């Protein structure tokens, strides 16, 4: 019996309404394929990228400013051309996407964890706890989230010495983007929790005297995750963009670990001197990445909404 369980689980996935609505929409399938390709190539960048852009030994300044392969001076070694230091643009994009996606996923995970916990507590306990948490959320919402991220980054910079800051810059960015986004998760989870906590299965758990924490975690949480996943997907696009914005402004990840945003900023200097490919290709990658993630999020939201089914 047990041996069949995974197969049964898999057939359940392919038999589900979600899978059905997925296969019915070509746009969604295309975005999923694009997003998956990007994630895979970013993850595997150190192994599959044609060059190692950060190994100074392999760089040759003579290769600098090589245009993409289809232009006259193009070179098959550098499909999308090279930058001012002779680094392969395709490889830097693959490595940059790795950083961008890492920051995106990590900051979403952070805001999700924070938002879910606070939302569950506010919704389940209610009363003063709820009022205080939700007022804090209201206040934070009055600041644009990019401003919050800038503020935190600035604070950390002011407090830490330069070298130390470069070491933890990545985590500061993740924290800054994460903290500026927890409100949406908290509000959604609180709303769903208010509905779920009055359902009879929660009362059944209360009747046998389970502790509030146990009820929140094992009963309420699994039932409020649907909308959370939708927001998480949509927020991933936002987080990637926020990181790119911060890096473009020069306050994001350090230049030794360039993300897509850093690449765009570096390339921006050469845009008007004719070397447009240095900034355009990272830009296109960023746009396509965010678009495909957002399309997936939109689809997930509609697919999980029983009213639109």
């Amino acid at each position: 019996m047990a041996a069949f369980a995974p197969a049964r689980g898999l057939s359940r996935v392919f038999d589900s309404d979600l899978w059905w609505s997925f296969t019915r929409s070509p746009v969604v399938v295309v975005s999923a394929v694009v997003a998956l390709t990007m994630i895979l190539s970013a993850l595997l960048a150190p192994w599959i990228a044609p060059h190692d852009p950060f190994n100074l030994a392999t760089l040759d300044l003579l290769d600098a400013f090589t245009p993409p392969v289809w232009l006259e001076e193009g070179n098959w070694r550098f499909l999308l051309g090279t930058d001012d230091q002779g680094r392969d643009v395709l490889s830097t994009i693959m490595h940059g996407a790795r950083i961008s996606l890492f920051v995106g996923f990590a900051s979403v995970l952070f805001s999700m964890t924070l938002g879910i916990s606070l939302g569950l507590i506010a919704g389940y306990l209610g009363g003063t706890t709820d009022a205080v948490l939700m007022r804090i959320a209201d206040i934070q919402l009055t600041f644009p989230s990019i401003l919050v991220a800038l503020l935190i980054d600035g604070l950390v910079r002011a407090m830490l010495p330069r070298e130390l800051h470069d070491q933890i810059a990545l985590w500061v960015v993740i924290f800054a983007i994460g903290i500026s986004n927890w409100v949406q998760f908290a509000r959604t989870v609180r709303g769903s929790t208010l509905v779920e906590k009055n359902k009879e299965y929660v009362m059944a758990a209360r009747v046998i005297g389970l502790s509030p924490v146990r009820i929140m975690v094992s009963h309420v949480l699994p039932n409020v995750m649907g909308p959370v996943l939708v927001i998480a997907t949509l927020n991933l696009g936002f987080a990637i963009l926020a990181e790119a914005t911060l890096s473009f402004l020069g306050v994001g990840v350090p230049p030794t670990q360039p993300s897509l945003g850093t690449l765009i900023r570096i390339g921006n200097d050469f845009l008007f001197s004719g070397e447009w490919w240095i900034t355009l290709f990272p830009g296109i990658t960023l746009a396509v990445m965010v678009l495909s993630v957002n399309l997936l999020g939109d689809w997930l939201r509609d697919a999980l909404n029983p009213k639109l089914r």
Partner: protein
Amino acid sequence: MPPDATATVRTKALVEVEDLARDFDVSKPWLFRVLQGDRKRILKAVAGVSFDIPKGTTLSLVGESGCGKTTVARLVVGLYPPSRGRIRFDGLDMASLTSRAVAAPVRRRIQMIFQDPYASLNPRWRVRDIIAEPIRAFGLIRDRAAIEARVGELLSQVKLSPKDGEKYPHEFSGGQRQRISIARALSSTPEFLVCDEPTSALDVSVQAQILNLMKDLQRELGLTYLFISHNLAVVRHMSDRIGVMYLGRIVELAPGETLFARPRHPYTRMLLDAIPDLEMTGRARTPVGGEVPSPIDPPPGCAFHPRCPLANARCKAEVPSLRTVADVQVACHAVEEGRT
């Protein structure tokens, strides 16, 4: 029979409820209230209810929506703390159980069955885990295989297959889900079951199955039931004694047969007359007018007086208390004064 035999029988009540009351604050948030100059609004959901349930019997509470019957059920299982009054279970004051550890042995003996079979089972859990939850929570069985065996036994007891434990709730019909709900309630081997409208979301043929099952279980396991329903016919079928509730109070409490044969309170009579019965084919009834007033602002005196054909000045001013006449308790000035 020795003279004090009746006294010992009296104290045999498993559940004793005394002057139980519960208020809900339904005011607007504090800031709005201050800005708009509104006063606090208190909903007296239950306003002083007393009853005993002898071991192995069924007491039903019946009434229309807003009468407070569901609140009584939830107070009795400890979902809400009472605003006033006392609940004793097997002689033990429930208010004395302050910590979770002290309460657990008592909570194990009290379980609840809910109204909506679609909301009472966690949709993300497998049935076997749903049923095993009380076993695990009270630490009744530690061994995994033994828990599994016990779940299978419980499923068979409610006439489901032990194999059904592998499935999720959405794979079952409403009636089957209610069986699962009952199996979960039975898993901690309780003595007292509080049933809050357990069949009102079900079709009649399924309702019959569940009611039969509940009666069988009561006989086999010697269970004591507090049964909440709005359906008088169901209540009559299930109960030994019936309490009729109106706006947070019990207006009449009587053995089932007596209540139907000779209803005393004007509200009970009105209710009995309002229900269409299969036997009454074609018979025209004269329904009583009026509607249940809001429990936030109940009428003074007897809450039923605006709809009551027997109401007089005293009924408008003075709240009648439950008085015992033979084996019946009635809260009505007219009955007391013989004005019926």
